[in-house]
């Protein structure tokens, strides 16, 4: 009775779907989060060897065989790189990228990670760091006596020192783009890693062709749309139920066959 296992693949797929949806909903307020989508593909087919069989005495030939599918599988969980809304926070070190581009982050193990979450802070030694204390690249020091930090749309960081009238440039924030941003690997903490699927990072300044602009005093919200997620959740739940109904039906039929001989 293949329909039992076919329906089981359907239930499994919907379960995966609900997992992805619940992760999206859980990250509704995560800065720089990109929603994901579970994508399904049909499994392989069993072709019952009847194609080309002679179907009548006059020699007519059956054009197609009977093809029975084996169910469904999760083909991929795809990250949808869509601009999230930006919210004004007024905080000097909240940066949002409008358009393409990710911030480069120096990981403790020396590798580079990438993020859209631009809610940075200043560390004790004057470095600009993420909420986990990882430094924003290329690194530069903010002077102790800086009273005001201005970051332009193209990433130039200027600091005004107490007692001085003019701000001076202390560094420049760079952005990176990937041709296939969806191919980056998420490692949690809003961080992403380069993979062979994503391609090599292309480093450039904000505002260059192909790069977005940096907005100071803004954060990029999660691009999860709650309405869309809830409707997807309802659809997934119903689909799960229907697959369960198929299992019930198959079971009933099996029971009838089993009880034939009383």
């Amino acid at each position: 009775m293949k329909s039992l296992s076919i329906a089981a693949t359907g239930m499994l797929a919907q379960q995966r779907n609900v997992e992805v949806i619940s992760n999206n909903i859980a990250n509704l307020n995560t800065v720089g989060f990109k929603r994901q989508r579970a994508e399904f593909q049909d499994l392989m087919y069993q072709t019952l060897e009847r194609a080309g069989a002679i179907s009548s005495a006059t020699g007519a030939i059956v054009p197609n065989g009977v093809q029975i599918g084996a169910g469904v599988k999760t083909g991929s969980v795809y990250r949808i790189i869509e601009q999230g809304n930006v919210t004004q926070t007024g905080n000097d070190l909240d940066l949002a990228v409008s358009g393409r581009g990710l911030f480069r982050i120096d990981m403790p193990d020396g590798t580079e990670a990438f993020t859209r979450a631009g809610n940075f802070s200043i560390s004790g030694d004057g470095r600009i760091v993420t909420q986990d204390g990882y430094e924003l690249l290329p690194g530069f020091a903010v002077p102790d006596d800086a009273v005001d930090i201005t970051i332009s749309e193209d990433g130039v960081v200027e600091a005004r020192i107490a007692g001085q009238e003019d701000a001076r440039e202390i560094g420049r924030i760079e952005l990176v783009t990937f041709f296939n941003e969806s191919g980056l690997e998420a490692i949690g903490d809003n961080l992403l890693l380069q993979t062979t699927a994503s391609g090599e990072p292309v480093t450039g300044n904000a505002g260059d062709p192909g790069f977005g602009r940096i907005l100071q005093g803004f954060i990029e919200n999660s691009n999860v749309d709650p309405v869309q997620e809830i409707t997807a959740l309802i659809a997934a739940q119903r689909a799960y139920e229907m697959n369960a109904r198929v299992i019930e039906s198959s079971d009933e039929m099996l029971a009838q066959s089993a009880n034939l001989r009383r």
Partner: protein
Amino acid sequence: MENAITAGLSRQIVLMRALEATANNVANQTTAGFKAEHVAFREYLARVPADRDSDVSLVFDPDSYADFSPGGLEQTHNALDFAIDGDGFFAVESVEGVLYTRDGRFSTNEVGELVTRDGGRVLDPAGAPILLDVEAGPPLLSPDGALLQNGVPVAALGVFEFDDPRALERRGDNRFRTTGEAKPAAAPRLSQGFIETSNVEAVAAMTDLVEINRAYEQAARVVETADELAREAVRRLSENA
């Protein structure tokens, strides 16, 4: 008497198969670009050697066919999701030759070629891979299939048609294989930021399920009754003896 049992059994076998097809449809109700599969039944007349005037009517399933009616369009706002409005299929390169799909959820690979989720390269109307400009950002699709980057056409999405889509064989992964000849569609209509949902009618599939269940029950009843009659005959005949 055995004929009634055979007829009942033949019905049960095709109903099992119909159930499997329905189960596969229900399992794939959220698979983008999926086309529902249906099983066709046919009567098969078996000559009864002992009685030349009567035939036993059996049933078999000579054919299962895909329902190629379009699914719904669901907006995703994703620049690399494409849907075909009307007939036609996207062409995807694979080791076993060109395969065809209605599932237009594409991405780019590390060199900028348009690929399916499992890495198969999507082909243009001439059958060549589609290379996008890495620097220029997401492409914009014109409704006739041309992909524009910075306002300049850089490639076109291939849409292919078949004289007889029945010649398409399912291959899994939302793909079809064909022995027939694919022709580039004359005037394809494409939408960007949309995907074609599965064309499985979930409600109809549920009623199919009930129908199959009841029909199976009836067939089981036929087998049961025939069996009872046979037993009854044996009992009575042995009494008379």
